[in-house]
Every structure is written in structure tokens, then in C-alpha cells.
């Protein structure tokens, strides 16, 4: 594995921080969209060191956080079936449904396995033809091409014992919703570099035109984020609103054509409910005609049960950036990673968990 150490260079990062201090002359509120970016910002300590006038809001870009509890329950129902081998990315295992989580289902005898790629689930289906193998397809445009590839392999090989529980969501409709919501204070976005690697950024140009809001496609290392913030603030300070690409070492305007074609072949856009945000039009993906036979919901006749969420959880406001995690009355008291009230406390990419796991002590910082 080749690591890009230059994007973690502490001296360069400090120089960029000092640079931000110089260019920020007024108060600005900006959002980093992706949970991976939140993770880096909090973990590296960048959030602590930003100019006082630059406020960061952590966006809804954590797939674990926005998957509705009803869909977690569907996953749990399927995973508990004796004929099913249920495959999932690791961090979905601890996400609580209305009464239990996948860890619990496993402890009760369910065959729940952590895989690192949807293709591993396809391989299990090939190896164990007597089992119904289901992959929990969560995530944004970043993970969707891999699940699409799994579906297309299964179709080609006529793997009758493989299916997908699809919960994919799309980023641009969520940004649109944030920009339209009356309480929103967001004046600019750091868009998620990985999503744009796949999809490109033509959709963002449309958002910029409609809402006159600057967007910078940004990577995930400390230096990336500081560069992205600098580009965003410069636009705000000079009154520009454009799409800029900080992550040009990876992202092209048109994205990855092959991945997009595959997505279009397997999935179609549909309305989707986001946990904490509600129903967003044309914000999700579902299997297209020709792939429906791989839909786990149909195969197992899953019945969706409405769930009333714990009223103490204000994750919707956190995801919209209206409420900061530490300002929530339940943060760190009723709501901890051991006993999460809502999803942002579960995944390490969730804004609440990111703050909790690295929560500042009351000790003076050593400089």
C-alpha cells in the first residue's frame, strides 16, 4: 500500500491553518458533507484550530447515520432467517434497529458475516449454493458501483441464491434539501471527493447555478481539507460561487464513466427516506427491471414496520447542521456509543460519535 504522507505533513497543515487565519475577515458557516471528512477534521484536531470566524457544520454524509431504522429492522428480519447468510460492512453490525442489532442477531444464531466487498458475498453465494446469501447494500455513490458489480455478476452467473437489500442514497438531493431548509445556515460546501470520483461534479454545477453557493470537491487528508477550506473561503470572501476541484489528483469532471454506466445499468433513481431528514425526492437507488429478481425485499416478502424514533434524539437537526453534537442535551449522557439513541452516535463517521470518541477533556492543551 502506498501512503500519501505529503497530505498529512504537519508543517504544511500548520502553514495552511495560518493562511486561513489571514483570509477569513467575516463570519462564515460551511459544511463538510462526508463523514470521512468529519472523522479527519475532528481526529487531527483541525476543528479546534480553525479561525473563530469559520464555523464548520458536519453534514449528512455518513451512510450508517442516514439509513432509516425501518430498513435496519428489515435487515435484522432477513438476517435472523435460518436459511440466510447475511453479509454486511463491519460498522452496520452495531447499528441498533428498534429492538436489537446485527451483533445480537448473530449471538442468537443468525449467520451474519462482515465482508469487505460485496463481491466477497457473491463468492460466498457461489461456494455455498444451499444458503441464501444477502448483501446489505448501504452507502452513497461510493459503494454503489461495487454493489452494482455484485448484482451484475450474480445475474451473469444466474446465482439464484444471491440478493441485495438495497439502501443506497445520493448526495446532491441532500445538499439541495439542506439549501432549501429554512433553518439552514450553510454558505458553502466541501463536497466528498470519493463520491465525485465516481459521479463527477456536473450535478454540483447545477446546484451552484440554482443556489449561488460555492462548492469545493475535497479529499480526506488533513492537508486536503485545509486546502479545500482555503479555496471555499476565498470564494466566499470574494463573492464567487463556483465548483472548484481540490481533489484533482483523483476526480475528473465527468467522474468514472465505467462506474456510472454500471450504476445506470443496475439501478434507477427513486424517492428515499433518510433517517433524521425524512423523505427526499429522487435521493435513492433501487434495482431496475431486469435486476428485481435480486431484490431481497421481494425475495423474502419483507414487511416494512413504521417505527417511532426516540424523541430525545435530535439527529435530524445534527445532520442538517442546525444543532452541534455537544449542544444536544443527550450527548454523552443518555446517548453514548454503548447506548446510542440515534445513528450519528453509532458509526465512527457519525458526527456525534466523532465528537464523543475524541471528546476534548477539560485539560489545558499542550502546545
Amino acid at each position, binding site marked *: 500500500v502506498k501512503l500519501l504522507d505529503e497530505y498529512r505533513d504537519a508543517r504544511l497543515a500548520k502553514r495552511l491553518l495560518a493562511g486561513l487565519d489571514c483570509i477569513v475577515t467575516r463570519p462564515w458557516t460551511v459544511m463538510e458533507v462526508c463523514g470521512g471528512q468529519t472523522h479527519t477534521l475532528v481526529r*487531527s484536531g483541525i476543528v479546534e484550530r480553525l479561525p473563530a470566524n469559520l464555523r464548520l457544520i458536519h453534514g449528512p454524509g455518513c451512510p450508517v447515520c442516514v439509513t432509516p431504522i425501518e430498513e435496519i429492522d428489515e435487515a435484522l428480519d432477513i438476517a435472523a432467517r435460518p436459511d440466510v447468510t447475511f453479509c454486511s460492512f463491519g460498522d452496520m453490525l452495531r447499528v441498533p434497529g428498534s429492538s436489537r442489532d446485527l451483533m445480537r442477531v448473530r449471538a442468537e444464531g443468525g449467520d451474519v458475516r462482515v465482508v469487505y466487498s460485496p463481491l466477497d458475498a457473491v463468492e460466498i453465494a457461489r461456494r455455498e449454493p444451499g444458503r441464501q446469501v444477502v448483501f446489505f447494500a448501504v452507502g452513497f455513490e461510493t459503494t454503489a458501483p461495487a454493489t452494482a458489480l455484485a448484482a451484475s455478476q450474480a445475474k451473469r452467473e444466474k446465482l439464484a441464491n444471491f440478493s441485495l437489500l438495497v439502501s443506497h442514497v445520493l448526495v446532491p438531493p441532500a445538499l439541495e434539501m439542506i439549501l432549501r431548509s429554512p433553518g439552514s445556515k450553510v454558505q458553502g460546501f466541501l463536497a466528498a471527493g470519493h463520491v465525485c470520483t465516481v459521479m463527477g461534479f456536473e450535478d454540483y454545477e447545477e446546484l451552484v447555478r440554482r443556489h449561488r453557493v460555492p462548492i469545493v470537491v475535497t479529499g480526506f487528508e488533513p492537508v486536503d481539507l485545509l486546502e479545500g477550506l482555503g479555496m471555499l473561503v476565498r470564494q466566499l470572501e470574494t463573492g464567487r460561487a463556483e465548483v472548484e476541484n481540490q481533489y484533482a489528483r483523483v476526480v475528473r469532471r465527468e467522474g468514472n464513466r465505467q462506474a456510472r454506466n454500471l450504476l445506470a445499468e443496475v439501478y434507477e433513481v427513486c424517492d428515499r427516506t433518510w433517517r433524521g431528514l425524512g423523505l427526499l425526492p429522487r435521493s435513492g437507488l433501487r434495482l431496475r427491471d431486469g435486476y428485481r429478481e435480486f431484490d431481497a425485499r421481494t425475495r423474502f416478502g419483507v414487511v416494512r414496520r413504521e417505527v417511532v424514533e426516540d424523541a430525545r434524539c435530535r439527529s435530524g437537526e445534527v445532520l442538517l447542521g442546525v444543532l452541534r453534537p455537544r449542544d444536544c442535551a443527550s450527548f454523552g449522557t443518555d446517548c453514548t*456509543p454503548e447506548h446510542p439513541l440515534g445513528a450519528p452516535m453509532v458509526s465512527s463517521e457519525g458526527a456525534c460519535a466523532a465528537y464523543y470518541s475524541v471528546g476534548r477533556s477539560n485539560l489545558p492543551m499542550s502546545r
Partner: protein
Amino acid sequence: MSVDPREWSTRCPVPLPSGDRITLAHGEGVRVTRRLLRQELLPAFANEYLGPLADGATLPAIDGPLVMTTDSSVVSPLFFPGGDIGTLAVHSAINDLAVCGATPLYLSLALILEEGLELDTLRRVIRSIGEASRRCGVSVVTGDTKVVPRGAVDKVFINTTGLGRLRPGAELGAQRVRPGDQVLVSGTIGDHGLAILAARNQLDFEGLRSDTAPIHDLVARLLDSGAEVRFLRDPTRGGVAGVLYEVLEHVAANIHLHEESLPISEAGRGAIELLGLDPWFIANEGKLLAIVAPQDVDIALKALRDHPLGEGAARIGEIRAGDDRQVLIETALGSVRVLHEPAGAPLPRIC
């Protein structure tokens, strides 16, 4: 499947030998069990205490306090880059004795075998236990074998109990730790946990190997150096962070760590980045975490680095006054974050 005609018998109820796999008969049938012990187990561990096949070992009198420890190994897969369940079972007992300040002397060995286990697999594990214990200079003096129905265990579970002699003058313990003391580790962190994760999921990280190794000699070197050593531990499950939180149960203080100073192998870093894991919590099986008096850091580091297992030794942090009992990490940018104990086993992130 081959059957040795000499093992045939007309006398009921001795079951037929099973050939190349462990069957329930190996756990219950007296003849088959004895054959298993004679042929597969005893030769690997030959020593004067084990020979007579009694129910227990009679050992010579030992001068001074004894230290005893026990550990069960349940790793999957059984064989992984850098070691196997056999080396782990031996090293974990040896290392637990070592960090208590004891010189390891004897081991007990209990095997729980799954019905259907291939005899060749058992042979490999046994050979590995025999070699590892010989290399560590300890004798396996007593043992037990059970066979359980398929599915009741995962192939082989091993329990080892270690007995050692406390080194004269060794005074170690978390309650001896005080502000100002320095935290050292003997080398790169996380290699075992990552190697197992990779092997379990057929992830290919070039150069990633478990660090499983006996550290009793390394500990002896450190204790002989004259450095004032307050506390020793092998940071296995729960990793470096787990050990430090344990220390804080006994000492009202804070522990300050420097993110940049934690030694991580190149292959380990790649795996950590890709899987989204935190190195502070990942298991090690051949590393030493030492807390030493501040004035003796250099002596201690030199003693560790002079040993092949301690070449990568580094100072990673210090104990500071305060009663928050928190482990704090100073980032490269100079800000400080709390390292919280995780709610469960580390799970890889989605993206």
C-alpha cells in the same frame, strides 16, 4: 483413509480407528486416546516430568515465590503469517509470566479438539507447540485432551497454564506508577491483530505478519539494565489503549501520548488506513509495554533496543498529574484528543 490392521480388535466396544481425522472416540475410547497421546503428543514434549503419563506432574521444589498464569487460545484461522495457534498458546503464557517479573519454567497444555479435525492439522499444531516451548526453555509437564462434537468448538481450542519463579527483587504493578513516568513500547504496534484480520478475510497486505514472540528474554534484559521499571504488560487484546486504561484504574492520573511516536510497520499502516481502524486498540502478541521512571528512559530504551525483539522500541508518552483518568493523544497539529475505550471489537468502516 488408511487403517492399520494392527489396531483392529474383535473386542467390543473399542471403535474402529478413524484414520486421518479426530473422532469422538479419541476423547472417550481409552485405547484410541492412549494411542493419540503416545503417537502424536508425548514425543513432541518429551521431558522427565511428563513421561509416566500420570494424572499430574510432580515438580522439584522451587526457592521463592511462584507466579502462575493461564490463557486460552481460540484464534481463527489456526495458521496465519508469522505464527499459528500453537505458538500463540505458548507465547501468551510465557509473556504473561514475563511481565509479572517471573522466569517461566513449566507449562500445562489442554487441547479441546473438534470432531473431524484433520490429524495432520493437529500434528502441525503440536509440533509448533513443542518447538515454541523448547525455544523458550520451558517444559510442558502435564496436559489434557478432549474431543467435542463437530461445531462445539472451532477446530482446536488450547488452554495453557504457565508456572514461573518470581525474579528476586522484581517489584512491578500499576499501583507503582506515578506522574512523570514514561511509557515505552518495544516495537511496531498492531501487527498481530491486523495479520489475523487480513488472514481471516483473505485480504492481501504485503509484508503483514503477526508479531507473536516470547518476550521473557527481552523483559529480563530490561530488568537487568538497572532501570527503575514500574509496570510491564504485553498489550494483547484491547491493545496499547486497553493496557493504559487498566493502569488508570489503579492510578489517579492522565496518560499523554504522542500520536506521531507510535511505531507502526509500513504494512500495518496500509491496513489500518484501508480498514479504518485505530492502531491504539489493536492486539499484539510479541510486544512489551513498559512504564519506567523518567530518569531511566535512556537506559531502558537502550536495553530494549539491544535485543532483537526490541529494535524498534520507542517512547510513546508519559504519565501526567491529574485525576481525569483519561488517555489523551496529542496530534501532529498539536491539539489533544481523548482516546476513549471502544464499545466493542473494532469494526471496519464502510468508506
